[in-house]
C-alpha cells in the first residue's frame, strides 16, 4: 500500500448505501475504501499523517519489540523520525510511541515503549507531532 496520509485511497464518493439491510457490524476497516463523510473534504490537513498496516513485527531485542514492517513501502529514510506513532487496533490500541528511525518500510520506536503485542494486520498512524524529551545529565 502506498502512503495514505489522508490522501484517502480510493476516494469513493459517498454514494447511496446499497439496497437491502445495512451490514454495519461486520465490516472490517478497509484501507482502500476510505469514504469521505459529510465535512471531511472541507478543511485542510492540519498535520502530515500516514496510516498503514503492520505487515511484520520484530525481531525482539531482549525483552522488547522495537520495530515493525509496514504496508507503506516508500518512506524516505527517517522521514517520520521523532513523529508520534499510535496503534489503532489490537492489543496495543491507543498506545502512543515515538519513532526513533525509519527505512522505506520499517519503523523503529524509541526505548520508552515496547511493541510487544503488536501483530501483523494491526493498524497504525504516524503523525508529525513531536514529543519533547529532556535528557538530564548529572
Amino acid at each position, binding site marked *: 500500500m502506498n502512503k495514505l496520509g*489522508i490522501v484517502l485511497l480510493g476516494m469513493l464518493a*459517498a454514494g447511496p*448505501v446499497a439496497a437491502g439491510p*445495512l*451490514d*454495519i*457490524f*461486520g*465490516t*472490517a*476497516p478497509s*484501507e482502500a475504501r*476510505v*469514504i*469521505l*463523510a*459529510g*465535512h*471531511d*473534504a*472541507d*478543511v*485542510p*490537513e*492540519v*498535520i502530515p*499523517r500516514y*496510516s498503514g498496516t503492520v505487515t511484520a513485527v520484530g525481531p525482539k531485542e531482549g525483552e522488547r519489540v522495537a520495530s515493525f514492517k509496514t504496508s507503506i513501502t516508500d518512506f524516505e529514510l527517517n522521514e517520520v523520525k521523532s513523529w*508520534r506513532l*499510535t496503534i*489503532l*487496533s489490537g492489543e496495543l*490500541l*491507543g*498506545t*502512543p510511541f*515515538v519513532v526513533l528511525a525509519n527505512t522505506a518500510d520499517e519503523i523503529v520506536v524509541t*526505548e*520508552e515503549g515496547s511493541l510487544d503485542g503488536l501483530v501483523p494486520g494491526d*493498524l497504525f*498512524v504516524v*503523525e508529525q*507531532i*513531536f*514529543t*519533547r*524529551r*529532556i*535528557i*538530564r*545529565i*548529572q
Partner: protein
Amino acid sequence: MKRAALALSLAVLAGPAAAQQIPTEVVDAFHSALTRQDTAGALSLLARDLIVFEFGLVDPTLEAYAFQHLPLDMNFAAATTWTLQTRRMGGSGDDRWVISTYRVTGTDVNNAPIDSLYLESVLLTRSGGNFRINHIHWSQPSGATPTGAVQGGAGAPAPAPGAAPAAPPAP
C-alpha cells in the same frame, strides 16, 4: 562523576485522558482531544464496541473509525470552532446518553466560511468506573446554516428558513 540519564516524555503524549465520571465531560473531552490532535487521548475515551454514524456513513468498529475518519475529524476540529447550543443528557446507571447541538464555524480549504448547525447523539457505557463512548451519531438538519441570531444557553438553535426545526434526534 557518575552519569545518569533521565528521559521524560512530556506534554504532547498526554496519554489516556484522565478518568471522566460525568458523561458530558467525556463528550467534551473527546472534542478537546480531536482539537488537540491527541489520537491516543481520543481513543482512550472510546469503547471497544464503538459504532459511529457520521453523515450517513458507518464506521462499524473502533478500528474502522480510528483508521478512516478519526484523522479527518481531527482536521475538521482544528479548522473549526464548535459552540455548544443545546444539550440534554439522560439514562441511568451505567448507560447514559448525551445529545448536543453545536454551531460550527471556521474556514474551509478554500478559505470560505463554515457556519453550520451540527447534531450529535452520543451513547456512553460505564465500565471499570469510567464512562466511554460506544456510539456517536453526527448529522446536520437540512438547511443547517443559521442565518440569524442563535439563542444561546439552553435556547434552541434558530432553524434556517424553510428548514425543519433543529430538534435533537432521538437517542
